[in-house]
């Protein structure tokens, strides 16, 4: 039968590779994807294997590429993914790649540190600008105090109405020093408390919030800060205040006292800020250009590095043959692909230009691995079967039967034309747009599950439409395609006076003695005993299908017993299974059919519905 009926025949082979051609041969075999290597060094530690240095170099390259990818994503540059599959580069090209990545990483690191320094500068200047603006308000009040009673309580809030200093002359007399700075907004309460405690209430703090958030150079996120100014008297307090400011990471700025100096400083800060802005934007542009050029190739580079790494991991599994300076490998190959593997090996040895590789078949008593050759359609069903357990070598594969039975049994349970159409359309859309959707490579698990099962969903939808027509169920309503076989043949007065009337199938006027051509009669939708009828019908159908299914599975096992030449199994397993199944469950199915056929309306009392025996009781009573 077809290739999916049984798992493929596998052969254990030994591969002799010359050291020079080992890399290219493994690369070609990797592209082929039909060989499974065995680990010939299972008890060797990871860091004692032969090619561990190369694997480490690949790890380093991967690290650099990951760094680049992070930076690219941070800037929001889209990564170009053409879906191309570059071949693994030769070992000597690996050095070129390493050098290239090193250069890129260093360049990016330099640009980043420059940008950070510039941003820090920018932040300082912005803070200074805000300080100069806000302290203007603090000092203004000192010069022009509003008319308030002098014993008014001092309170700290954003209104900036109350002042401590009464006029400038008094201010100079008291030799009050001050310190101005900027601090994160969330630290202000603790900062105030600490100041109060440490200086025993001898300092005075004024603070004002800055409305715009500033960018923190290290993390890049926006933070809100406040401007503060602390007035104190004496040097000791000054030291203490400075220490506390350092402790809370408040940056202090020199703020001149005289308003004229402040205005001058503000102008200087403004020009410097403008200059810095231009330099900063140029740095950002440069960085952007570097990242864009890297983004074009990064996917291809990543694939190349992964391929190199996996080739060296595979080479680590080989045994070293010291005598002939070669490597020995053991692998499982499907017998049908023997020629393809030979061809791949020849290509590999030609590329590296050395002696050809030798492929020997070994005979072994070991159980070979199970290999099913699937395509994109059958793969989903094979996965479904494998989740219950992988079939043993050369056993009949349930997957080809599952292609039909699984969606059909689902449809028996689902059975709605309307919802079936929606499901079939969804599955159909996923199948139609297969290529672009699979190229997207999202991490969303739920989407990946649905997309992986697109063929299953399509089939389930189609079958559901069929069973929906049989159940006559469209969004839980019935449709009348062919005209109902039931007619309400009562006269008007009877209909007006009775809430419920019974339609008797024996009566020719009420029931055309032939059933609805396809599916359930739509009249059932209107009846009171619809649930009674539907449930009994659906349960019996399910039992019949289930038992047929089980019987089919048991009968399949005969092929397996014949194939493995185990005649004893046929007598000791198959025959007893069939006897057991038949005597119990096929008997039950026969009872169901008999009841359907023998008992009905319009006939003898002994075959009327009122005399129909219960299948359950009959079955239990045997």
């Amino acid at each position: 039968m077809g290739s999916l009926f049984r798992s493929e025949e596998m052969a254990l082979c030994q591969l002799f590779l010359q050291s020079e051609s080992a890399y290219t041969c493994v690369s070609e075999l990797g592209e082929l994807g039909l060989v499974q290597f065995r680990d010939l060094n299972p008890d060797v530690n990871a860091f004692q294997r032969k090619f561990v240095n190369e694997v480490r170099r690949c790890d380093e390259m991967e690290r650099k590429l990951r760094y680049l990818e992070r930076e690219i994503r941070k800037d929001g540059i889209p990564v170009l993914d053409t879906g191309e599959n570059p071949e693994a580069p030769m070992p000597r090209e690996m050095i070129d790649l390493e050098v290239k990545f090193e250069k890129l990483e260093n360049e990016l690191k330099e640009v980043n540190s420059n940008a950070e320094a510039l941003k820090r500068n920018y932040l300082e200047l912005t803070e200074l600008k805000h300080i100069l603006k806000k302290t203007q308000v603090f000092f203004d009040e000192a010069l022009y105090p509003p008319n308030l009673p002098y014993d008014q309580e001092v309170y700290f809030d954003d209104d900036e109405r109350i002042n401590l200093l009464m006029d400038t002359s008094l201010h100079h007399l008291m030799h009050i020093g001050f310190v101005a700075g900027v601090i994160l907004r969330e630290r202000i309460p603790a900062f105030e408390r600490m100041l109060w405690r440490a200086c025993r209430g001898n300092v005075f703090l004024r603070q004002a919030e800055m409305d715009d958030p500033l960018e923190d150079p290290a993390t890049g996120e926006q933070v809100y800060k406040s401007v503060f100014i602390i007035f104190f008297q004496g040097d000791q307090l000054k030291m203490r205040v400075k220490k506390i400011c350092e402790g809370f990471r408040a940056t202090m700025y020199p703020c001149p006292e005289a308003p004229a100096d402040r205005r001058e400083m503000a102008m200087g800060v403004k020009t410097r800020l403008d200059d810095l802005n231009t330099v900063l934007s140029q740095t950002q542009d440069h960085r952007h250009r570097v990242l864009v050029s890297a983004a074009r190739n990064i996917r291809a580079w990543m694939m190349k590095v992964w391929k190199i790494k996996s080739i060296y991991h595979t080479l680590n599994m080989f045994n070293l043959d010291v005598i002939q300076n070669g490597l020995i490998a053991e692998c499982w190959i499907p017998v049908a692909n023997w020629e393809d593997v030979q061809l791949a090996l020849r290509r590999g040895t030609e590329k590296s230009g050395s002696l050809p590789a030798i492929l020997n078949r070994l005979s072994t008593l070991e159980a070979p691995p199970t290999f099913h050759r699937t395509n994109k359609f059958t793969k989903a069903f094979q996965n479904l079967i494998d989740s219950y357990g992988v079939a043993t070598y050369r056993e009949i594969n349930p997957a080809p039967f599952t292609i039909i039975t699984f969606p059909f049994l689902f449809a028996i349970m689902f059975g709605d034309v309307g919802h079936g159409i929606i499901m079939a359309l969804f599955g159909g859309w996923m199948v139609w747009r297969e290529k672009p959707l699979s190229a997207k490579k999202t991490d969303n698990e739920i989407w990946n599950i649905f997309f992986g099962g697109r063929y299953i969903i399509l089939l389930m939808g189609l079958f559901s439409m069929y069973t929906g027509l049989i159940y006559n169920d469209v969004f839980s309503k019935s449709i009348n395609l062919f005209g109902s076989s039931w007619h309400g043949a009562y006269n008007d007065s009877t209909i007006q006076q009775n809430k419920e009337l019974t339609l008797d199938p024996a009566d020719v006027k009420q029931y055309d003695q032939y059933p609805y051509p396809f599916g359930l009669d739509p009249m059932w939708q209107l009846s009171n005993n619809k649930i009674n009828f539907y449930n009994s019908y659906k349960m019996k159908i399910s039992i019949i299908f289930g038992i047929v299914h089980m019987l089919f599975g048991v009968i399949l096992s005969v092929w397996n017993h014949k194939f493995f030449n185990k005649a004893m199994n046929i007598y000791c397993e198959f025959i007893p299974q069939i006897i057991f199944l038949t005597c119990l469950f096929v008997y039950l199915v026969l009872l169901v059919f008999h009841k359907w056929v023998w008992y009905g309306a319009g006939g003898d009392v002994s075959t009327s519905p009122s005399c129909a025996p219960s299948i359950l009781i009959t079955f239990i009573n045997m």
Partner: protein
Amino acid sequence: MTQLINIVSHIKTSPESCYATSGRMLDSLFNIDNGYLEGLVRGFKNGILKETDYLNLVQCETLDDLKLHLQSTDYGHFLANEASPIQVSVIDDKLRDKLVAEFQHMRNHAVEPLATFLDYITYGYMIDNIVLLITGALHQRPISELMPKCHPLGTFEQIEAINVASTSSELYNAVLVDTPLADFFGECVSEQDLDELNIEIIRNTLYKAYLESFYSYCKSLGGITAEVMCEILAFEADRRAFIITLNSFGTELTNEDRKKLYPQCGKLYPDGLAALARADDAENVKQVAEFYTEYRALFEGAGSNPGEKTLEDKFFEHEVKLNVNSFLHQFHFGVFYAYLKLKEQECRNIVWIAECIAQKHRAKIDNYIHIL
């Protein structure tokens, strides 16, 4: 039926009322608030390195081999983004970062009383951080240099303003009064300037108050938590008493001062502590330990000759044994404390092995403490 209703009505259904009646919670109700975290911490504990891992680690020739081997353990790719060549300090930091992340996750998901319990564990690190910063300030180091050396679990908001204080009363009034450590400060407030000796005394006094407070909190929780934690904390208290005594010989610390530093929640209280206060050399200390079976076993065979384990190592081993045993009970908070301590010991082990490899001095590479 009525009997069933009577029985049901006797069972308190809310956890709060469970505490009110007996001071301990029914085991069956433990999982409501703490089931997820206990499951999580047991999962973490299963990832602690085993003997086979350590055998592989001591065979490593370079630090890169060490990194390769750690990739296959629960640590995974925690060093993946570090440029090679790696240094031991980087490994140490990353190991600690991973442990801190796990602890923070558990603390964020904890409700009372587990939240208070986990907070108590962090107070020990706060004490160490404070002492580190003050010592650094004494040696005129800038605060920005000292902050990365602080343990992340022991940070609090005002920690960087520590260098404001020059006497212990200032330290209390300005900085610590708003922190949870305020309660432990009771006896140490004085007007003396902070200097080397004072700082050690402050550290030990704080730690003594902290241990005793933790001990009484665990006791108030009752149940298996009290059993397990009080055993562990009692050993910690006695260990500190021994170490303080042994370290104080030949220093300016008088016997009376030393007595004030002994935590009183251990097995040595009151007679052993009184005897230790009178001890004058190592022999006397050993004689005091003779009266207690576990401690006699620790002191025996401990010495500084090659081939013998040092007393500190024996203390570590005993602590590890107590911590591992705490996992044999279920429905208690001791597993969180034990996991933290075991992971720290594992970090110390890995760093020891890494140092031996880095300095190519492999004679004592096997002197790590075996955990599992």
